[in-house]
C-alpha cells in the first residue's frame, strides 16, 4: 500500500511536510485571528519560540546520534536558580557559572552513557533527578525573584536592539552556530554517521565515544543557556521554571522531521518544528484551550510525528 509516507516519494514528502504544516497552521490561525499576522505578534511569536528552540537545538544533536536527553528541563530550571542566586555577587559571571554547570552535567551524562554503557535515556533521566533535587535544595524549594539592581545584567535578554528583542537575537545566533556545526563541520557529519550506522563509523576510525560525549555536553550546555534566558525573561529563577518544556522540546525536534532513531535531521528542521509547536500553542490559546491541557496535544503530536518520520520498512524492530 503506497501512502504518502511509504510510497516512492516518501522521502520528499517527509522533508517538506513540516514546512508545509507550519505555513498551513499560520494561515489557519491568521484567518481566525488576523492580528496574528501583524509584525508585533510575529515578533512575540519569535520571542516565545526562542527558549524552546534553544532547548530543541541542543537535543537535536543527541537525537541525531540515536540517543535522547531527558535532563533538559531540569538543567534549564537549575540554571535559572543558579543565576537568580548568584547574579547579585557574580554579575555576568553568574551566566558563565550556570552554563558551565550545564557543560559539566552533559559531560557526566555522556561519560556515564559511553563508559558505563548505560542507555542515554537512563543516564539523562538519572542526571535529571540529580539536577532537579539540586535546584530544589539550593533554592530552598521556592521561586527567587531577581532584584531590581540585578535586572540590569539581563538587558541582553530583555532589551531590544534596533527594535528586535534580544531573546530573538540570542535564538538566531544559536541557530546559525548550531546549523554550521551540524551541516558544515566534521562533528556534525560524525554525529549523523554514528546515528545512521555506528558500526561503520567506528570501523572508519571515527572516535565514536568522544563525539557522543560532545553531543551530550552541547545539549546540556544549550539547556543551561535556555534556563539563563528564561530566568531573564521571567525575572526569576525557580526549580520548576522549565518544568513543562521537555515534551514540547522533543516534540519540536521530531515534528521538524528529525528521526528519533538517529541519522537523519537538521537544525533548520528543528527551527521549523519549534515554530510549529509555538503556533499550535498560540492557536490553542486563541481557541481557548486550557493552558494545562496543552501537553495533551503535544503528547499526541509527538507520537503522530514519530510515526510519520520513521520509515518502518527500513526498521523492522522498534523497542
Amino acid at each position, binding site marked *: 500500500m503506497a501512502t504518502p509516507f511509504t510510497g516512492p516519494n516518501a522521502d520528499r514528502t517527509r522533508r517538506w511536510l513540516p514546512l508545509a504544516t507550519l505555513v498551513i497552521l499560520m494561515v489557519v490561525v491568521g484567518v481566525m485571528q488576523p492580528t496574528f499576522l501583524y509584525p508585533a505578534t510575529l515578533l512575540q511569536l519569535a520571542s516565545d519560540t526562542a527558549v524552546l528552540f534553544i532547548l530543541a537545538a541542543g537535543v537535536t544533536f543527541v537525537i541525531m546520534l540515536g540517543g535522547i536527553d531527558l535532563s533538559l528541563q531540569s538543567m534549564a530550571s537549575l540554571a535559572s536558580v543558579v543565576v537568580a542566586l548568584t547574579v547579585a555577587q557574580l554579575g555576568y559571571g553568574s551566566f558563565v557559572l550556570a552554563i558551565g554547570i550545564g557543560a559539566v552535567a552533559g559531560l557526566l551524562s555522556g561519560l556515564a552513557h559511553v563508559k558505563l554503557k548505560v542507555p542515554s535515556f537512563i543516564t539523562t533521566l538519572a542526571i535529571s533527578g540529580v539536577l532537579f533535587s539540586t535546584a530544589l535544595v539550593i533554592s530552598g524549594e521556592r521561586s527567587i525573584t531577581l532584584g531590581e539592581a540585578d535586572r540590569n545584567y539581563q538587558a541582553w535578554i530583555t532589551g531590544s536592539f534596533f527594535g528586535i528583542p534580544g531573546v530573538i537575537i540570542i535564538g538566531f545566533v544559536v541557530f546559525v552556530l548550531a546549523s554550521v556545526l551540524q551541516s558544515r563541520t566534521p562533528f556534525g557529519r560524525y554525529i*549523523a*554517521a554514528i546515528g545512521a*550506522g555506528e558500526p561503520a563509523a567506528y*570501523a572508519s576510525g571515527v572516535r565514536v565515544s568522544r563525539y557522543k560525549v560532545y553531543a551530550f555536553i552541547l545539549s546540556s550546555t544549550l539547556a543551561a543557556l535556555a534556563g539563563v534566558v528564561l530566568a531573564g525573561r521571567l525575572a526569576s529563577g525557580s526549580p520548576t521554571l522549565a518544568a513543562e518544556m521537555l515534551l514540547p522540546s522533543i516534540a519540536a525536534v521530531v515534528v521538524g522531521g528529525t528521526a528519533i532513531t538517529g541519522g537523519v535531521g537538521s537544525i533548520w528542521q528543528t527551527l521549523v518544528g519549534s515554530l510549529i509547536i509555538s503556533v499550535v500553542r498560540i492557536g490553542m490559546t486563541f481557541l481557548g484551550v486550557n493552558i494545562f491541557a496543552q501537553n495533551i496535544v503535544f503528547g499526541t503530536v509527538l507520537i503522530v510525528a514519530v510515526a510519520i518520520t520513521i520509515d518502518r520498512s527500513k526498521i523492522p524492530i522498534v523497542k
Partner: protein
Amino acid sequence: MTIAAAPYALSLVNVNKRFPGVHALKDVTIHIRPGEVVGLVGENGAGKSTVMKILSGVYQPDSGEIEIGGKAVSLASAYDANTKGIGMVFQEQSLLLNLTVGENIYLGNEAQFTRFGIVNWRDLYAAAKRQLAKVHVDIDPRSLAEDLDFATRQMVELAKALTLEDQVGGGHLVILLDEPTSVLERAEIDILFARVRALKARASFVFVSHRLDEVLELSDRIYVMKDGAVVADLPAAEANIPALHQLMVGRSLQAEYYREPLQRPYRDEVVLEAKGLSLAGGFTGVDFMLHRGEILGIAGVVGSGREELTRTLAGFAPHDGGQLIVGGREVHITDPAVAVDLGLAYVPRERRLEGLVLFLSVAANVTLADLQRLTSYGLIKVAEEKRLVKTWIERLNIKTPSVNTLCLNLSGGNQQKVVLAKWLNTKAQILILDHPTRGLDVGAKEEVYEIVRAITAEGIAIIVTSDTLEETIGLSHTVLVMRDGEVRFSTDAQPGHKPRQVDLIQHMV
C-alpha cells in the same frame, strides 16, 4: 516398490532466486527421499544457505516449485514451514538461553498445554521429557538452556525439531541441519551423528557442513553446488574428498580471472610485521612479514583464527601477546581509529553494517575516514569534497546517479567500491580485505580484482581473507594457512609458483 518410486519427502524443482545484482539460485532441483540424509556442499556463495532459507520458509523462490510428498506447496514463513513438517537446527543456535529447556522446546506451541490462558507446566515438562528421550538426552527439562554445553543444546534443538511430528499428525519430517557441527568436539559430533542415523526412521535430513569428511560420513547422497547451480548429485558411497572438491571449484584456476599478468613482484620494504602475535581465544604465536606491494592471503576454516587475526589488525580486538610492528614501530592497535592513524584500512566482511553508513550519501561515505584533512578553520570544504569524491567515482568506475545518492541505493559491487574509495582516499598503505568479494557477482568481483592489482602496483600492501581458496591463491603473493589459531603453513604464491588447493587443504583440516 523401490525407493526411487516412492514420493519424495521434499523437493525443490527448477527453483530460481535473485537478489539485487546476484542470480543466487539457477534452476535448482533437489529431491529428498523419506529417511534419507542428503548432504549439500559447495563453496561460500554457491547457494547452500539460500537453498536452506527457501526450504525453511525464510525466502520465497522467484520461480520453480517446492513440493512436499509430490504436492506443490508454498512456505510463507519459518512458522509455515514448521507446520508443514520442516524443522531446523541452525549453526547459530536458536535456543533462548534465559528460558528453560522445556520452555524452549515448546516455544510458540504452548497452546496444547494451556487452559484459560494458564500454562500447565507439569504437562509441558513431562512432554518435553518425552521429546528429550527421543534423542536420548537425559537432562531435567526445567534446567536453563544457558547451563547446558553446546552439544547438549544441539540435542535440545533436535528434540525441539522433532515436536513437529505431533503437529503434522505422524506425517514425515524433514530436518535441516545447517553447520550443526561447527561448535562441537569430535566426540560430540559422533553422538550427534549417531542420533541422526537413529532418527532416520522418523525423519529425513538435509545436512550442510564445510567439513567434507563429515558430509561423506553422514550423508546417503550428496548434492554439489557451484555458483548457484547444482553441478552434481551423487551417492556418498561413490564420492571422495578430492572429487567433491574438484566439483565444487569447477574450473581449474583461471589466471586471467585474477588478473595474474598484472601481478607485480612485491618490494623489499617491510610495512608490517607480526612476531609471536597472540590473542587469547583467537590465535597464538603468529609470525609473518608484509612487504610493500605484497598481497598476503590467509587461508583457514571457520575457527582457524584467521578472522580474529584480521579483526586484531583492524583494531577491534587488540592483541595480548607478542609484537606488532607497523612502519618500523611497535604498535598496539587498541581501536580502529588507531589503525586508521597508522595507515591501516579495513574493508569488512559485513559491508552493509561496518563498511558503509547506508543512510549517508556516497560523498559522506567516501570522506568519512579522512574528513579532518578536508577542513579549514574547522569547516568542511564542501566544494572540494564534492570534487574529490567525483574523481574517486571516476577512478573506480562507481556507478551512482550522483555524489549525494544514499549508499543504500547502490548495488553490492558499487558499495564495495565506495568502501575502497574511502580507504584509498585516506592514503592508507595497508589494506585488510576481509572477504572482499562476498556476495558480489562475477563482474563486480573482477572489478575488485582489477582495483586490487592497480593499488598493489602503486605499493599498497594487502592482507586478504577470502571465501574461496581459489581467490586466495589467485590474488596472493604469499599464502599463510591457519588452523586452530596457529600458522601451520606458509608458501610463496607468485605467478608461476601458485600452490594447488590440495596443497593448502591438507594443512587446513
